[in-house]
């Protein structure tokens, strides 16, 4: 029976940081630190297999069981609502999902608000909770440009430092939800690899203790 734990990590800076947390929790795989283009790394002794995937795809790998556990941003979990367990807030990769608008924007409640975003479900849910009619404009990137060109009134996007917003004469108007990286697990995998997943969760939880929520 295959009891290797398959772990999907997001490629990039966050992934490196998260791997370090996994290693500190006793789930190390030294090969992963080698500089090469490999995407899959194995530590047979510990029964671990790590792989790097695009951050927004981690939840797909986990939901479909190609990975048993993974690390995904709360933004992705809210947007795609995958059927997975969200087991731990890793308290890294912190940022906020915000509504931002040009500094001189005045909201006219008599008109339908035009909202440009990559996160259409989050934006739609947020404005529905406020009872506000909106016109959603789905964009795949460079969302900040939409209000400048008059494509939208506001944007809903992730804000880390706010620098990109400032440089484009935008400002945060409302915070929709705080975001951070979460440990997620496939529901069936959890049943059959429970001990390892619980040990991983406990190890990571020890590492995040004392970190401000």
């Amino acid at each position: 029976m295959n009891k290797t734990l398959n772990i999907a990590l997001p490629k990039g800076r966050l992934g490196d940081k998260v791997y370090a947390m996994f290693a500190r929790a006793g789930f190390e795989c030294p090969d992963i630190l080698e500089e090469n283009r490999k995407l899959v790394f194995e530590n047979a002794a510990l029964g671990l297999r790590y792989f790097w995937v695009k951050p927004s795809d981690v939840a797909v790998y986990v939901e479909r069981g190609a990975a048993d556990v993974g690390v995904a941003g709360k933004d992705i979990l809210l947007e795609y609502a995958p059927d997975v367990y969200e087991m731990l807030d890793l308290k890294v990769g912190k940022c906020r999902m915000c509504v931002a608008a040009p500094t001189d924007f005045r909201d006219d409640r008599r008109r339908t608000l035009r909202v440009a975003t990559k996160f259409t479900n989050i934006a739609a849910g947020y404005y529905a909770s406020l009872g506000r009619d909106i016109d959603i404009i789905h964009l795949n990137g460079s969302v900040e440009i939409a209000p400048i060109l008059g494509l939208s009134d506001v944007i809903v996007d992730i804000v880390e430092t706010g620098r990109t917003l400032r440089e484009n004469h935008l400002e945060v108007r409302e915070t929709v939800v705080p975001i951070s990286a979460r440990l997620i697990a496939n529901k069936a995998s959890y049943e059959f690899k429970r001990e390892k997943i619980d040990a991983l969760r406990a190890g990571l939880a020890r590492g995040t203790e004392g970190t401000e929520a």
Partner: protein
Amino acid sequence: METGTMKYEERLVFALRALYRRFGYRQFKMRKFEEYDLYARNKDFLISDNIITFTDLNGKLMALKPDVTLSIVRSGTDADGGVQKVYYNETVYRVSAAARGFREMAQSGVECIGAVDDFCLAETLMLAVESLRTISPDCVLDVSHLDIVSALVDALGVGDDVRRDVLKCIGEKNPHELEALCRAAGADAGAIADLKQLVQTSGAPAQVLPALKAMDRAPAAAVEQLETLTAALDALGLGDYLRIDFSVVGDMRYYNGVVFKGFVSGVPAGVLSGGQYDKLMRKMRRSARAVGFAVYLDQLERFSSEAEDYDVDTVLLYAPGTSATALLRAVRALSADGRSVTAQHTVPEKLRFRRLVRLDGDEVKIIEQNA
């Protein structure tokens, strides 16, 4: 019946049917469509509220059935004392997130309706475990008790919208969001701590039950019932397949009491789901109690590793003008031992076959042998 030539899913349906019949369940057959009204009134009970509808010749709006339980509940009437036990193998029409559209899904299941007591519940749990074992010995049934979950959620004293989010967190095994949510809603700290513990409590009944008994807010009757039911299965040697896990949460407007979900190793999502649905019965003006479960056969499509190496055992080549009688005789002779034969003028492209033979007069000559 000869099951050797059946596909995996067909054999499975056959085995499940035998299992349910053995315990006195009778088959319930139903039509493919029902009046749309039935589903419109109980939309929240359905897994997805998208339904394929059409207008019948008499002007009535009909629906291709997205669910089996509602039809069974509607068709029955309450009788004193007894229980109605039925099983089904049906096709339902639902939206599949993976297919981004409607899909036809095969489902088997049982429903036990009437004076449901602890025996009926134990028997249903036993049938659920046995159904899973029919699929794979490497299986687990997660059991939860909604009376415990709802008592602990009630203790928070939060409004309906927060309650809905709290239940979502319980289903996600998400203690961190649960805590943040309850704190923001001003819930009692002790109640939050209990609920967090419940979310993180999961495992074999022998491990979990003592912790539950020590939890003052958990209703003793429900904990006792879990103990009775799990002990009954343990006595049958099925205890190792059970886990108590409160992340199994059904819609509390329909479900109550014991709810459960089954997994088999190698399938990424639950393959069996069920529980008590007395509240649905009340909504449909029935006084009886009810419990049942469904096995999602569509989840198992990729589970079986049986891949066929060959499309056909024998390709029989014949020249144009060959006597039909001679050809028929040859086909029957070659297939007499149960092997498949296809007679062709030429070998079809990409057809995988075990052997290639040619009919020469009355004689069959082997041209190619692959296995």
